[in-house]
């Protein structure tokens, strides 16, 4: 089978050490088997990795991969994955961003770019269709992401060029550094910005003019016209444009799952001061959308007066508002916007930063660290001045920020007594959904291939709906289904929100893909491919030393019951979790140590992975 569209079948390889580029023509088999985006990324990472790879060494690669649907005429087709070995966790990591950046990359005629090596000086990559140059970025050193993007466009002399950058945090190899594109859209998680920083790559600027290949354009147009009509008719469509993900604050607080005071609590009594209504009424100055998306869930907000006046930012969405709101005890929306702006500009992940800052506040309040440890600032909940200062210190590695910049493991290494306070899995800080009331959410975090991130599984809403009358088997199956369907969106290069939030039928994506490639696919076939990729990322992690002991949710979900709200008193049971993990492994076709069995690997067409897993099973 040869796809007649969907792919250019070309990958751009850039070696920054040698200052060389070459173009790889990919086989039809590779293209279709791994689909694109995170799928292609995982496979390329697997092929280039060594067991003792240094995530911040020149040998590590970073794959920039939109998907075969990115840039096509269909709802929300603007997602790009960045895949690599993560400096935060030491295992496979990926993170994606929306906007226009990946679409522009596809319009240069490349489906993906792979970057390796290390440039001799701070540089940026300029991809102007087929003309590829590595240029000096020394003048942008220590400059913020948004400012760099703005200046780079000016220097190139074209306001329509698409740019992805890292901020000072990425340059300084901060392990929660993100990659920022289209003025504040972030591939935030797993420290992908630090990988670029380790390669001395400050930015990537792209200008493409080429047609995107589609096998059956009239069919795609027909399906999409219908899809757009359907989305616009949804009764929540208009509300979604107005508040976007900020509407989740009220839902999460009412459901008792909003992170509060470093996840000690899951209910915030001042949630009404930081919710979607507050944003909409007092701060919002405009909508923003990713490529071809009618939902326009992003909000442009401005602080009009007070000490943060003039702060303008595309955001926050739920995660940021919760992690820099309830989780650090801030109930002033001005301060949340400021924190969001600083994180975007310095280039750090708002989830990781909000989490570790809240850990330090709790640690100081409980006397687990001294005043000297926190640079003489008596930390307390909701102290916005101290929190803004902390963000800067992390980004520039000053004082206590230097330790936080080394991520979860850096903090534990310096202060082992803080380990029980940190909500993380495998070194990645937990997203803004409490897991104590939902074992599926805990299992989702524990078995996510990149660490405690909600992008792989978000079964919490379903569990809240279902109550207690369903079996552990059903629960494990739900988590596996989430971990299969959600990453599929990242592989196709589209956003999952039309599906989750506006009830858009996931089967339509099989139709989009069929129209693009000219080959008929069912959703089941695509899910099978996504499942194979999940087994592949598992294999990468096993090779890098991951064991069953790492598949555990944050300690807090067992030890510290929720204090207030609708689920006060609730915590998870360790025994029950062990039981569901067994069931999960079994249903995944993994052995008791969490290593995919030979049979599972064969079923997924991963024969070449078998020998590595055998070695691990033999304890080598």
């Amino acid at each position, binding site marked *: 089978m040869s796809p007649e569209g969907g792919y250019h079948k070309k990958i751009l390889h850039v070696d920054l050490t040698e200052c060389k580029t070459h173009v790889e023509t990919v086989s039809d088999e590779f293209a279709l088997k791994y689909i694109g985006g995170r799928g292609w990324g995982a496979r390329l990472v697997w092929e280039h990795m060594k067991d003792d790879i240094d995530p911040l060494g020149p040998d590590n690669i970073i794959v920039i991969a939109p998907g075969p649907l990115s840039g096509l005429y269909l709802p929300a087709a603007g997602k790009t994955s960045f895949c690599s070995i993560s400096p935060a966790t030491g295992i496979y990591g990926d993170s994606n961003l929306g906007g226009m950046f990946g679409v522009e990359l596809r319009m240069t005629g490349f489906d993906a770019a792979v970057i390796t090596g290390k440039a001799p000086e701070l540089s940026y990559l300029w991809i102007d269709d087929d003309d590829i140059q590595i240029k000096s970025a020394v003048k942008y050193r220590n400059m913020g992401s948004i400012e760099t993007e703005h200046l780079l466009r000016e220097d190139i002399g074209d*306001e329509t060029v698409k740019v992805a950058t890292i901020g000072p945090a990425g340059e300084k190899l901060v392990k929660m550094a993100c990659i920022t594109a289209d003025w504040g859209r972030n591939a935030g998680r797993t420290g992908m910005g630090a990988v670029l920083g380790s390669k001395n790559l400050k930015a990537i600027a792209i200008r493409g003019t080429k*047609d*995107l290949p589609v096998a059956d354009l009239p069919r*795609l147009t027909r399906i999409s016209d219908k899809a757009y009509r359907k989305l616009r008719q949804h009764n929540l469509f208009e509300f979604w444009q107005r508040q976007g993900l900020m509407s989740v604050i009220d839902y999460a607080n009412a459901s008792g799952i909003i992170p509060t005071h470093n996840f000690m609590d899951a209910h915030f009594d001042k949630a009404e001061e930081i919710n979607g209504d507050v944003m909409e009424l007092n701060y919002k100055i*405009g909508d923003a959308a990713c490529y071809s998306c009618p939902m*326009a869930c992003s909000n442009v907000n401005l602080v009009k007066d007070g000490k943060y006046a003039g702060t303008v930012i595309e955001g926050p969405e739920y995660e940021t508002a919760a992690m820099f709101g309830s989780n650090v005890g801030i109930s002033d929306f001005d301060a949340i916007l400021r924190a969001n702006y600083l994180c975007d500009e310095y280039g750090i992940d708002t989830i990781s930063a909000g989490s570790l800052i809240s850990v330090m506040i709790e640690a100081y309040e409980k006397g687990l660290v001294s005043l000297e440890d926190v640079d003489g600032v008596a930390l307390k909940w909701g102290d916005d001045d101290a929190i803004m200062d902390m963000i800067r210190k992390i980004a520039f590695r000053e004082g206590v920020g230097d330790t936080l910049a080394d991520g979860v493991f850096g903090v534990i290494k310096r202060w082992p007594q803080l380990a029980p306070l940190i909500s993380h899995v495998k070194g990645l800080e937990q997203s803004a959904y409490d897991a104590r009331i939902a074992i599926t959410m805990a299992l989702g975090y524990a078995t996510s291939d990149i660490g405690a991130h909600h992008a792989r599984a978000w079964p919490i809403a379903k569990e809240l709906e279902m109550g207690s009358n369903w079996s552990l088997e059903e629960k494990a199956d739900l988590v596996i289904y989430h971990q299969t369907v959600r990453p599929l969106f990242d592989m196709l290069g589209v956003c999952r929100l039309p599906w989750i939030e506006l009830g858009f039928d996931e089967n339509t994506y099989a139709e989009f893909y069929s129209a693009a490639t000219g080959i008929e696919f069912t959703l089941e076939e695509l899910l099978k491919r996504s499942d194979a990729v999940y087994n592949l990322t598992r294999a990468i992690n096993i090779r890098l030393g991951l064991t069953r002991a790492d598949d555990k949710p944050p300690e807090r979900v067992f030890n510290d019951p929720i204090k207030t709200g609708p689920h006060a008193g609730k915590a998870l049971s360790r025994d029950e979790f062990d039981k569901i993990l067994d069931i999960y492994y079994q249903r995944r076709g993994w052995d008791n140590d969490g290593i995919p069995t030979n049979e599972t690997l064969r079923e997924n067409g991963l024969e070449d992975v078998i020998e590595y897993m055998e070695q691990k099973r033999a304890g080598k």
Partner: protein
Amino acid sequence: MCAISHAGVNNPKKANIRVISLYPHPVIKMPIVCEQCKKPKCRDACPTDAIVKNDGVVTILEDRCISCHACVNACPIGAIFVHEDIEIPFKCDMCGGKPKCAASCPKKAILYVPEHTQGQAHRLGAALKYAHMQEVEYYEHGIKKKLRYAEIETGGTRGDSE
């Protein structure tokens, strides 16, 4: 979508409409598309009379155009586009009277309205900004509601007489 229906390919760089977005100095997003000027500067600039206006729509005639790009530079808002794959400059043709961009815009940022209604939004805005608004509260089916109205002024001016 514009490019699909006019150029037959999925390529936004071949569309007859573009969105300019600037950020953060200043924050603005603006669609740029031909306004079908009454006295088109592109037509005046064309050395081969390849640009004509029929039924209110400005059109570039392919057989007369020499692709000198004089029109591209003459357009005061930059609504005529070029692409290396396409022989001559291209622009909005109003989709035969049913512009697809206006029909599909989910935010109503692009409107297709009769010419005489132009400026209506400003007039409406001006009316709503009227300084002497009054409010009455009333109950309908037990729910408290507010009605706003403009008070008639005896002086006929907007200034405060006191």
